[in-house]
């Protein structure tokens, strides 16, 4: 086999300019795929992380039918204490769950004693909420990175519009599910950076304050946000959890809960899917580049060496060996392009990271692009290039091996 490689390499070096051009095309294709995959992948990961880790959680569980009416934050669709107890038991049994946080979501009137506006609020247990959405404290751009009873975290746009600052006193007026109105004073403990996506402009109050404001006799939970130990296990855990959660029935035999992943709840899941699709498209482009460039050069190589093929066939070279001589040429071109492309691609990714390129995502600005590429992606791109190179060479190689030596020797 070494001799086949030696002859193949010498034949490639025989037409240096053509070989260099083809290898350059393959190399550029690999670089483009690696850099695009790393940047698009990093952007996607950051986007998902911002959405899931700062507000949404990986999964959410609601009382059946709540999500369909979520825009109106219907208090009559909250789950009762008994239902939440059942749910909590199920969540504790699931191995993949890292943390969960019950929320009471409601709408209210927000007043700074001079102006009044509406606000969407989440009643949360700060400890559970921060464990479930760990980037939430980072969104507190001024004030304490905590939330105590009697305090409120207000979204940045609201604070700016109503000219309020940390330490100010405000009033929240809310209507409970029976229609009675109640009000409560809060101290502004922090201003929240707005985030893109559902819930990104909500305020936060303490869980107990929400119960008090809404005059609940027992806690009634609007939603339970769930954080998984491994985001990569999302589909697996969601499937297993959905089975047990949706198996819980009410006295009428209908499902008690519904489970949604972040993808079901955020429109940005579609953007993530688009990025995945674009990555696939770019890989298809790479396949086309490799296929066309290598097939073209190998067809030319066979045509130019017909007499040589005739000679080696006449002196007894087995057809399989003739085929392998050309296949190895294509393989070497692909390997060279893949190795060089990977090296240059990794260097470019490193340079992109050194440049600290920033980008904006919705309301969030100054997010630093951290391009990275998984070894599995590098391996996959390399394998694609090598396999496609060999496949592109297959037709000319088979043609060479099937040539009649007598006809090939006559070729001028």
């Amino acid at each position, binding site marked *: 086999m070494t001799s086949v490689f030696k*002859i193949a390499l010498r034949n490639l070096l025989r037409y240096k300019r053509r070989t260099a051009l083809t290898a350059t095309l393959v190399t550029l294709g690999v670089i483009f795929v690696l850099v695009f995959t790393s940047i698009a992948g990093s952007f996607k990961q950051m986007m998902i992380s911002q959405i899931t880790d700062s507000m949404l959680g990986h999964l959410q569980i609601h009382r059946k039918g709540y999500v369909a009416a979520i825009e109106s934050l219907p208090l009559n669709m909250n789950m009762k204490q008994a239902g939440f107890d059942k749910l909590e038991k199920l969540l504790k049994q699931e191995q993949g769950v890292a943390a969960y946080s019950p929320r009471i979501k409601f709408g209210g009137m927000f007043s700074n004693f001079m102006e009044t506006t509406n606000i969407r609020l989440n009643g949360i247990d700060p400890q559970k909420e921060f464990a479930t959405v760990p980037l939430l404290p980072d969104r507190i751009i001024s004030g304490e990175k905590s939330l105590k009873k009697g305090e409120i975290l207000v979204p940045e746009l609201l604070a700016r519009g109503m000219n309020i600052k940390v330490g100010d006193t405000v009033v929240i007026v809310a209507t409970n599910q029976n229609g009675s109105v109640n009000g409560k004073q809060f101290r502004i403990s922090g201003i929240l950076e707005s985030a893109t996506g559902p819930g990104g402009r909500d305020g936060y109050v303490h869980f107990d304050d929400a119960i008090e404001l809404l005059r609940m006799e027992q806690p009634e939970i609007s939603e339970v946000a769930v954080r998984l130990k491994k985001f990569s296990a999302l589909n697996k855990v969601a499937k297993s959890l959905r089975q047990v959660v949706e198996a819980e029935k009410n006295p009428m035999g209908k499902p008690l809960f519904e489970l949604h992943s972040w993808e079901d709840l955020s429109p940005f899941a579609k953007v993530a899917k688009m990025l995945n699709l674009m990555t696939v498209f770019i890989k298809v482009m790479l396949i086309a580049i490799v296929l066309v460039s290598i097939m073209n050069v190998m067809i030319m190589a066979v045509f130019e060496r017909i007499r040589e093929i005739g000679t080696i066939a006449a002196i007894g070279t*087995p057809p399989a060996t003739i085929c392998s001589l050309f296949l190895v040429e294509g393989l070497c071109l692909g390997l060279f392009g893949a190795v060089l492309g990977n090296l240059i691609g990794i260097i470019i990714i490193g340079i992109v990271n050194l440049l600290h390129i920033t980008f904006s995502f919705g309301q969030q600005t100054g997010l630093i692009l951290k391009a990275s590429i998984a070894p599995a992606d590098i391996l996959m791109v390399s394998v694609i290039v090598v396999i496609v190179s060999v496949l592109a060479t297959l037709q000319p190689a088979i043609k060479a091996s099937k040539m009649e030596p007598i006809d090939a020797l006559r070729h001028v």
Partner: protein
Amino acid sequence: MSLVIAEQVRKLYRSGETEVEALRGISFQINSGSFVSFVGPSGSGKTTLLNLIGCLDAPTAGKLMVADTDVATLNRTSGAAFRGSEIGFIFQDFNLLPVLSVYENIEYPLLMIQRTAEAERRKRVMTLLEAVGMADQALKRPDQISGGQKQRVAVARALITNPKLVLADEPTANLDHATAFMVINLMKQMRDQFGTTFVFSTHDPRIVGEAEVIHHLEDGLLKESEQKGDGSHD
């Protein structure tokens, strides 16, 4: 003992509606160790006959046995294997592989066809390099040596597998007179040294006389056979 036996060998080529009978029933025998020449003008069937003996083509009719093998029974793979072990080829245009050195060109059949071990390969290549007087040019590429030297390398390559038969189609056509004589003498010398049967075609009257058995071809028929000595070599 006959190495090649041809009985009423015919070869018909078809090109669309046109049929050309290149060989029209030829019978002859070639003994082991002989130095045989097929002579005749262009179109007489010399190359066709050598292609048939070299198992590069099959006869349309008749029987052709080479080294006890019926040429008509060989397919693409078995034909290649047979040629690789039993037959050596010398071409008019030398047909050396340009990417390989003189040494590697001679080594090629042992390396790529017979898969011979390196030590044995080296021994045999060096023996033949010495025999054809090209040992000092072993590392040169074909484009760095003369036509006569290329044909010497081709002779060595044809002999490297110890074939029973070496076929040379117009081996001196691209060489000047002195070099042509030198190549023919080298072939004869190799026959003497290794006992290999040499069959060559030519239309050069100055070279014809060097053969020990001369078959005259004309219009696809064997017109005359001359023999100098007993036609075989001991």
